[in-house]
């Protein structure tokens, strides 16, 4: 069971939260191509390692916030408020894993 440190309420149990998918995903402008738009809709980084994601503390303060979590160990490396930038994370599996060049499938 995940125990997630809400930036406002402290550590709480997983069932108090709602998972909201990856964070720091930018919503494209209206004029983008179908390909770019559907990549925003459906494309997923889905990393094995650190995942930046957002959660809602539904049964607590009602706030959405960001979590950096290792998808293999479930270790929570950071939580931070909505709007704050990605923290720099030390160690392997950190931001490096995300620097991979991404070519979109079609």
């Amino acid at each position: 069971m995940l125990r997630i440190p809400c930036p406002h309420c402290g550590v709480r149990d997983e069932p108090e939260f709602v998972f909201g998918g990856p964070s720091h995903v930018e919503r494209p402008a209206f004029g983008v191509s179908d390909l770019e738009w559907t990549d925003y809709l459906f494309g997923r980084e889905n990393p094995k390692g650190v995942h930046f994601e957002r959660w809602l503390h539904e049964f607590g303060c009602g706030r959405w916030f960001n979590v950096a979590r290792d998808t293999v160990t479930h270790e929570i490396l950071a939580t931070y408020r909505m709007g704050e930038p990605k923290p720099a994370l030390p160690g392997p599996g950190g931001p490096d894993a995300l620097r991979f060049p991404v070519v979109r499938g079609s």
Partner: protein
Amino acid sequence: MTRYNAWNFLRQAVQGHRGWHPAWGAAEPRRHYEVIVVGGGGHGLATAYYLAKKHGIRRVAVLEKGWIGGGNSGRNTQVSRSNYFYPVSSSFYDHSLKLYETLGRELDFNVMLSQRGLIVLAHSEHELELNRRWANAIRMNGVDSEILTPARIGKLAPAINLHARFPIVGGFIQRRAGISRHDAVVWGYARAASALGVDIVQGCEVTGFDIAGGRVRGVHTSRGTITADRVVMSVAGHASVVARLAGLRLPITTMALQAMVTEPLKPVLDVVVISAAIHAYVSQSDRGEIVIGGGSDVYNSYAQKGGLPAMHTTVGAVLELFPSFSRLRLMRQWAGMVDVTPDTTPIMGLTPVEGLYINCGWGTGGYKAIPAGGDTMADTVANNRPHPLIREFGLDRFARGALVDEGAAAGVAH
């Protein structure tokens, strides 16, 4: 290969079973193959088998990073059904079920297919209407289905509690659906493929692709570089990780789906029961354990273990359906990493990289698809175009918005 039949078995029994041969050869990878299949799960092995069997392509290797069947194919709840909503799904899955019906003999390996019937429960009038829509769709697709009254359900599964917190108001059954033995399916395909000359290489992890001029030339592995004319990715939970090695970004989220078994008991449940509304499905294995599955953890996970909350929800739901199971004991729980697509329909076919094919997105329900998945992928690879049954399952459907949303339509996916 010594055939598996009563005569040979008895002969061996008398000789202390000393004369049996390895079910599949332990292969060292060669330098080059016509086709490399990445991933030794059911789909990868079946693809290799049909390539060799139906298309005469025998210089094929299946590269498995661990042991074959160690992925989802060896940790699923064994349910096979073809009661899908959309005709494209239904015809594909029914093809699979039909292949399952003769698979034991085809592979010379008893996969213990038990077509004991599968009941989908409805807990409200609204759900019953959706069930009727679903059951009729299945019939329209030429697949058997039958709407059941609560009384009929009670007869087919006497242990069920019709007066649950969300009472059971009806349901429908697909009688040809059922379970089979997952390990046997994996081993049966491996043995049959190996007998046709396919190399099954365990402990060989693909770490990169050799791509030049938009065409795949081979793979880098933990055991060196191997060249190949064509490569199939069939790695389920690791689809995003492996596809990214080829520069592709997939519409896939990997999640943990758990399952569990009770201590084994004498037969008490003769059908498979699924409740979509309260997220549980239950059957009893031939060894006697009650095999229980439920919803997945809803966040990305490569942990290959499930969370406590999902386990509690599932067990609670099972006891709502079967209160008399309360005193049974949970013996083991485990999880697999399932590759979930936005529309719960698989991704199969060609990729933007020439010679590279993809088979993934099975999510919580690709065990039942193993024979058809292998058959249609082999055909796709051999002819470099999608097999007619999987035309709608291509990776390109997302950009068109042409989702095949089984989850949205039927509300169930296993």
